[in-house]
């Protein structure tokens, strides 16, 4: 076991000085998508509230896990943050500038610093371009493909664990895991500070996932990268994230250092999510306490008033009194520290112990 302690240790020491200053700050980010009627005149008949006032920081050399189920707005948050689609309101502060206010031209130089790796390694690489050219493209776009451009590309391929000799092959000649490595090499070509990883392993087979996760950890250590790791799989996030933010229906419901979030989750949704992820361990899996949710995620066109989770919340349904429930219906719970040590957006947050560490 050669655990790289720097990357593995949860950042429980916030006295880190300069290293702890946020590299990227997201404040009250909102993204609504218009819903139009299907008639000839496409009137706007509503809005999908995909992201509703999301705030978080990403610190230097840190991995922030952004977790949620489908429709939680996690991927929209990632794309809006990179200004790949315009934000409805809010701010994304990076290097002293608000990215949401920047034009495409002004954004271009900043793209060197902020890169993204996509979920589907089959769709994210242009099938008609050789791997060398795919990795060289960012350099060419930013006019830094100099005399040693080819050497740089070879170095990048080596960095992500690919054989540079295979650079003139085409994407379809590679397996899923290798393609994901190509995508990572492309994202690293401009030496970014922040890497957004949008479900980077969820399309891969289990035996391949581990290699990519290890690679990402090594790269972070080697290059001092900050990651926003978007995922639906909490087990994966547990392995790679220092801090975790849980999203539900466009809002962050809880943010905490990974160890705390998994050890004593305080939001009922986080609790249900953790209890729903199966453990590959028959005895523990069968002995676990389960919190089963009822129903499905509500339609984001008309999300519930007050707390958005209340329609599925076991606490709301089973433990609260009528006046307490009224608060859930009427009042949006703010994401603040409620004495549990980390911000949580639940009026009645209460830490719960759900996982035991194996002996």
């Amino acid at each position: 076991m050669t655990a790289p302690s720097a990357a593995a240790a949860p950042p429980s020491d916030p006295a880190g000085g300069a290293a702890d200053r946020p590299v990227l700050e997201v404040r009250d980010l909102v993204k609504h998508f218009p819903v139009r009627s299907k008639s000839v005149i496409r009137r706007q008949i509503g809005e999908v509230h995909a992201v509703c006032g999301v705030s978080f920081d990403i610190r230097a050399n840190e991995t922030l896990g952004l977790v949620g189920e489908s429709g939680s707005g996690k991927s929209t948050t990632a794309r809006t943050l990179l200004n790949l689609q315009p934000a409805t309101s809010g701010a994304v502060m990076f290097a002293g500038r608000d990215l949401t206010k920047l034009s495409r031209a002004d954004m271009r130089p900043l793209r060197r610093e902020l890169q993204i790796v996509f979920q589907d390694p089959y769709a994210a690489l242009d099938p008609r371009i050789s791997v060398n050219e795919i990795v060289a493209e960012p350099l060419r776009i930013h006019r830094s493909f100099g005399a040693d451009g080819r050497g740089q590309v070879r170095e990048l391929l080596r960095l992500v664990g690919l054989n540079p000799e295979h650079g003139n092959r085409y994407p379809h000649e590679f397996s899923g895991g290798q393609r994901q490595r190509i995508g990572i090499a492309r994202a690293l070509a401009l030496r970014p500070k922040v890497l957004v990883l949008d479900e980077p392993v969820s399309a891969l087979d289990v035996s391949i996932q581990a290699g990519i996760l290890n690679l990402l950890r090594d790269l972070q250590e080697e290059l001092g990268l900050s990651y926003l790791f978007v995922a639906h799989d909490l087990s994966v996030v547990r392995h790679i994230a220092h801090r975790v933010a849980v999203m539900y229906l466009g809002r962050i419901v809880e943010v905490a250092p990974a160890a705390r979030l998994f050890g004593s989750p305080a939001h009922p949704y986080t609790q249900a999510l953790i209890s729903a992820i199966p453990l590959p361990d028959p005895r523990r899996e069968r002995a676990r306490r389960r919190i089963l949710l009822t129903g499905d995620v509500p339609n984001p066109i008309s999300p519930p008033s007050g707390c958005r989770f209340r329609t599925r919340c076991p606490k709301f349904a089973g433990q609260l009194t009528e006046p307490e429930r009224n608060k859930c219906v009427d009042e949006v719970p703010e994401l603040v520290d409620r004495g549990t040590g980390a911000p949580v957006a639940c009026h009645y947050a209460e830490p719960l112990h759900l996982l035991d560490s194996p002996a």
Partner: protein
Amino acid sequence: MTDTAARRAAEREFTVRERTQLQLTVRRFLRHRLAVASLFVLILVVVFAFVGPLLWRYDYAQFTPDNSVAPSLKHPFGTTEDGKDELALVMRGTQQSVKVAVLTAVAATAIGAVWGAIAGFYRGLVDALLMRFADLVLTLPLLAVAAVLAGNTRGSWWLIAIVIAGLQWAIVSRIVRGVVLSLREKEFIEAARALGASDTRIIFRHLLPNAIGPVIVNATILVAVAILYETALSFLGFGIKAPDTSLGLLVNNARTAVDTRPWLFYFPGLFIIVIALTINFIGDGLRDAFDPRQQRIRQ
């Protein structure tokens, strides 16, 4: 232990059959027998049209002493009433027709592909304006417009080609727009955007190369269409003008002589049919070859 594993992995790496997209496409095309046979015939026709005149003893403009001779060893396709060798004429005619057709296909494809790609890429108002214009072009009665415009071409083959292309590109633009609309949602386009790529780069580097399949297929169809239009225009007297000749002109000149000198009508007619048919079959073959659904079964 791990050395062994690494060595084995390396061995496997190099025993894998390498195949590019192009190789796969070619393989699939070669399985289409009719298309391959058509390609072979078409190559023969092209060689006949472009190399034949260099070898044949008569020039198409040359008057031989033999007037209205039926096909014979000396004049395999016979001669015209003014003593021109029909074989030389058909070779020249095929040459001119093929030139017109290829230029038409290239020009219409180039304009249409860029037009459609821009419309599909920007969508919204740009798309609406560009495509309404393309629709307008599509509604024009092609033959009438071509006849009016081509009347001023003085029989120059490339002007005729430009006129036909000017009316045919709209079809290409529709096809390319459709392909681009679906391609632009692909993650690799978003990836290019995230890298800071310009629109021009995205369109020319990523969108158009990926639309190549349908574009090439349509280009072959255009070749066949253009041959037929050139024939029709020449037949109506708006195309290539004497003393030069084209297949359409030859058929036109011979239409009064179908009964008396049938060879003058049937030989150029046969070439028109052969060229149009083979190109259509090749188009079929290419469509199948580029179709991703033709990928071999993967479990």
